[in-house]
Every structure is written in C-alpha cells, then in structure tokens.
C-alpha cells in the first residue's frame, strides 16, 4: 500500500505531483490511500494564497502544462483538457474520497482514451456531480453572503458570516474582490475567514457568528423591501425552497419573515378578492396622448 499525505484540503499541487509519480511507477488506484495533514495555520495560509491565484486563471491548463515540462519522463501521461477542468472544482469538494476518485480516473485514462466523453460512466458521472455541487456552493455563496455595515477606526467595514458546504473560501475570494475592491470586508466561516483591506487579502482562522455586529440600518430597509416585493396572491413554496434551501435560512436576515408572510397570504388575497370596487377618490383629468410628429421622431437636434 502507498500513502499520500496532502498539505491541506485543497492541495491541488500536491495531488498533481503525487498522481504523476504514482502513474509513472504503475501504482494501481486501489493500492493508494490519500490523507490530508491536520491544518497548521501559517503554512495553510500561504497555500491558500496560491490557490486563490490559481482559480482566477481558470483557463491555464496547469496539469498538462507541468507534464509537458517533464516530457522526457512523462511522455505517455494522458491528461485531457476535460479532466483538467474537473480537477479544480472536484478538489474543493468536502468528500474525502475525491483524491482517490480523481486518481482512478487518471489511471483509467491511460488505457481508455474516450473515457472523459462518457458522461454515463459511473466514475465520470460522480466527478460531474461533485463538480456541480461545488459550483453550486460557490454560486450560492456569491448570492447569500450578507454583509453588515459597521465603523472601525472611522472607516466603514462590512462583515459577514457564511457556512459553505465545500472548501470554497479561497476559490470564491476573487469574486468578492472584483465586486467590492474599494470596501473593507471580512467573511468568516467555521473553518476559515478572509479579510480584504482594500489592497490585500488576508486569510484568518475559523470563527464564530457571534462576532457579527447586531444591527445595521440598511438591513431594516432590506426587510421592508422583501416584505413588499412578495405577492401574496401567488404562493410557490417549492420553487422558493428549491433555489433557497432551508439550510441557508439561518444566515439570511429576510428568512425570518418567510413564515409570517406565508401565514398571512391567504387572508390578504381573500381580502383583495372580496373588496367592493371603489370609485376613484381623486379627480381624474383625462390623459391626452400627444402624437409625435414624424419630422422630429429621429431626435430633437
């Protein structure tokens, strides 16, 4: 049996290096055990930096690139583009078997040329499902992070608590930097946090939600908006929960309103239906539509 120790949960470089060596030595997938070393804060930070940079360059085919550098040793290594594209998201998945599964697919690819095109193959299907789950988790994080505004040393700071399912914190950082580069913001999660100070991203150890500021004036307006954009005459709870599952609710301020909005919807709709039409209470001046003359229709120069 061979044991591989990866430096941290998203150690994509470590996996690549090990996988290449294992293939070169003809080690079959069932003869390898994959482990992740327990986190050691400082070292982990540096790797996460590398990771954040890595995922922003989604186009660069690193895995195949590396194999080209060592062309002499690895002439026979088959790494199709489709696998490279799946490795990045799958590595971020929380399932411990991801490293072994990726290695098994790499192993099979050395013999089965068209494997990546077989979406119905059990291994490929599993990779697709894992990649999809990670992408969804990342997408939901861009949607459901809620910042609270506070003032620290005279400067506005935006704080959020979020609990991603997979190891996506570093991978999603470029999204928040690209959107809120001029703001000071911090997103904390149970496993790790990140802080953007306007120029640099800092990774922090995991935290607790209690560190969030309790109040924010903007949040009250948001709750008003949520209450009033809802149309009580159409309840579609399944559609809502499919896209906004309950597991996210405890970190969404507006979710507290859902139960009461649903409870009141029937009465409100009934009241609208039963209400007798009223004549307008205001004086109405008939509107005269002005016809635009064709000679000025092209503009008012």
């Amino acid at each position, binding site marked *: 049996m061979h044991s591989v120790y990866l430096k941290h949960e998203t150690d994509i470089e470590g996996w690549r290096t090990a996988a290449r060596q294992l293939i070169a030595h003809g080690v079959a997938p069932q003869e390898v055990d994959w482990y992740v070393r327990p986190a050691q804060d400082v070292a982990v930070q540096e790797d996460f930096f590398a990771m954040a940079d890595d995922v922003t360059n989604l186009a660069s085919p690193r895995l195949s690139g590396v194999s080209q550098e060592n062309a002499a040793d690895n002439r026979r290594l088959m790494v199709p583009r489709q696998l490279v594209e799946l490795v990045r998201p799958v590595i971020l998945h929380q399932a411990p078997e991801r490293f072994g599964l990726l290695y098994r697919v790499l192993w099979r690819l050395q013999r089965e040329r*068209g*494997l990546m*095109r*077989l*979406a*119905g*193959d*059990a291994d490929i*299907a599993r990779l697709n*499902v894992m990649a999809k789950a990670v992408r969804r988790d990342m*997408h939901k994080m*861009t*949607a*459901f*992070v*809620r910042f*609270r*505004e506070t003032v620290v040393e005279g400067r506005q700071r935006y704080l*959020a608590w979020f609990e991603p399912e997979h190891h996506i914190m570093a991978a999603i950082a470029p*999204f928040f930097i*690209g959107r*809120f*580069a*001029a703001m000071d913001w911090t997103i904390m999660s149970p496993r790790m946090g990140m802080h953007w100070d306007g120029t640099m991203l800092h990774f922090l150890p995991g935290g607790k939600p209690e560190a969030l500021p309790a109040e924010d004036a*903007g*949040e009250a*307006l*948001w709750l*008003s*908006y949520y209450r*009033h*954009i*809802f*149309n*009580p*005459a*159409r*309840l*579609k*709870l*399944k*559609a*809502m929960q*499919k*896209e*906004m599952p309950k597991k996210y609710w405890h970190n*969404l301020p507006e979710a507290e309103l859902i139960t009461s*909005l*649903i409870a009141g919807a029937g009465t409100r709709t009934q009241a*609208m*239906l039963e*209400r007798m*039409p009223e004549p*307008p209470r205001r004086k*109405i001046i008939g*509107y005269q*539509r002005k016809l635009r003359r064709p000679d000025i*229709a092209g*503009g*008012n120069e």
Partner: protein
Amino acid sequence: MQVQQKLEILADAAKYDASCASSGTERRNSRDGKGIGSTTGTGICHSYAPDGRCISLLKILLTNFCLYDCVYCVNRVSSNVPRARFSIDEVVQLTLAFYRRNYIEGLFLSSGIIQSPDYTMEQVVEVARILREEHGFRGYIHLKTIPDADPDLLARAGRYADRLSINIELPTAASLSALAPEKDGAAIRISMARLRERIDAGKDKTVSGKRPPKFSPGGQSTQMIVGADASDDRTILSTSADLYGRYRLRRVYYSAFSPIPDASPVLPLQSPPLVREHRLYQADWLMRFYGFESHEIITGEQGMLALDMDPKTAWALQNRAMFPVDLNRAPKSTLLRVPGLGVRNVQRILAARRVRAVRLDDLVHMRAPINRMLPFIQLPDHHPGATLDAVSLPARLKAIPAVPQQLGLFM
C-alpha cells in the same frame, strides 16, 4: 414621507413585473478600486420570496403616480392605492446601500407616467447616469422604457443600462386598446424595432475596427400579462414567436394576472391557474432551445396548452409515430424532442456515442428522468414495445411526479 414608507409603496407597485434577470450582459468588475460592482454574465439571484420569484435586483418604481388608466395595473390613475415618489438621490443611495451589503445585483427601475413620457423618462435615465458616472457603479441596471418618450432619451437610456424593456402588456392589439387605452401597440413595436437597431449596432465593429459605443449589452425583454383578456395560448405563443423573430428579444416574461389591491371591476374575477403561466414558460423554452415552432406546441383543446402534463410530453403523445427514438442513431434535432431529455443530456449523449453505444445504465448515471423517457426511446438493452402505443400511456405519464425543471422564472 420616510424612505422606508416610500420603499414599501414603490416595491408594492413594482412587484407585478415578473422580470428580475441580471444575466446576459458584458462582464465587468471594479478590481481597479474605483467605483463599485461587477457583473457575472449568468446573473445571481440573491434571494427568493415565497411567491417563488427570484430577487436579483432592487425592483422599484420611481413613482407610482400615473396618468394612464390601464385597467389591469395596480398603479392606474383611477386606483386608490397609496402613492409615493422617490427623489433621484433616494433611489441612488438605496441601490448603493443594498449593493454594498450584497443583497442585490443592481437596479430595475420603472415608473408611472407623470407630467409627460419625456419628463418621466428623463428622471429614470438620470438615476442611471448618476449611478454610473458619479458613483462608478458597475452592477446591473435594467430600465423600463416608455415607448412614447423621445428616441433620443431611449438612446441615452441604452448607454447606461445593461438591459432595456418595453412591456407589450397584452397578446393582441385589440386587447391593448380595450384595457390600456393610453397605450399604443404600434408605438410599442416601433420602439422595440428602434432598440433592436441600436443594440445590433452596439455589437458590430465598424469598418475601421473601432468599437461602437455600448448600447444595452444585455438586450431587451418584454412582459405579457396572461389571463386578463380572453387570448388563448396559441395567440400568446405566436405573439412571442413574432417578438423573438422580429425584435430579437432576449426574453418574453409571462405574468399570470393575479388579484391586486383595489382592482378594476372590468377585470375577470378569477385569476388563471399558476400552472398555465408555468406551461407557457416551458413552451417558450421549447421554441427557443429545442427547435419547436409555436404552432406545433399547442396540443390541448381550444388553442390551449395541456395543464396536466408538460408541453413536450403532450406533443410526443400526439406524435407517437415519430417514436421510439434510437438514442444511438437519431440526429440532435430529434433527440431534443424526446420527453425528459434536456439540452445538456443531449450533448452528453452525442459525445458518448462517438466512443461507444449508450445504454440504459448510462442514462441512470446521468440522472436523466428515466421513467418519463422509457416509452419513447430505444437502446441496445431497451425497447418500449407495446407501451408506446398503449391507450393507458398518457395516464401513466401523468402519474410520474414532475421533475423540478430549470425554468426561466429564475433567470
């Protein structure tokens, strides 16, 4: 009046517009540290209300005072709903405050018509201009345009907006003049044509290779109210097909007419079933991504879509002679017509069958809705035999719980 109170009134006034998309525009970010915001191309839904609708944009009216008297509209001049008007700065500040907290992708601004179409349009455009030019806002902006406004104002709107829309409101010109006397169907279509020209011009490179000024990079969309008039689904879908073809709209939204506060006595008391709206969206999808023509989708009686099954299955049942389809041989256009097969799985089947024959197990691993597909497909290890022609097939298919569908309601 406090901003909070205005927000309540003007969100109430805006909620009957179904569109909340933040997709389809160019990609931008503010990594340079100037301004704020970014766009992703696919859009983000930041929340969902219990009515199943996505909340992606701050969707409000600048004011719900309105000179028009469209009977289906909550804001018509003859309605007694409370009225409010935001100042331009209030909308700008509200948008930025929500955006910084990551509540929204941007702003969808519409307005009741006050003073004149030109005056109203100018105010709406000014909000967008201030957001873009004074605050460097790079998030999404969708502006509702007023067809009667000066074309020059529409041109300015397109410079700041990611998407423009003009509501067609009702499927026929006759219904529009009956229910919305101040609106003019011809003017709406002229404006759509004009927008299309500008949007197209904004995409073409000029002869000299210079990029033309951007114009509404996310295109234009419209909304049709379903169930406020007597139009059948056939009429609605052929109007949509015409709009997609003629003005190259990105989306037609269907909004099932629902009870509103202080409704006009002219309106029907019964709102249409929500599932009708759902079927129209499915049919719309079939026209845009599955190669169906608007006239062949209508299979129900009296020009209506069947309510008790999805339109693709209903179509397949009426065209059983085309089935079973051999998944290993049929061309792409035929695969797209198989009930239960979506665009993604069609692509996967096409890729896989170049390597080896696709079998039943493959479909299971792809998580395709097998039970709904089996009567219509043929594989090396499956043939539907007599089940395809069985009289009981429609009943059997209706008994299969509907798979959740990715529909346009959220995009």
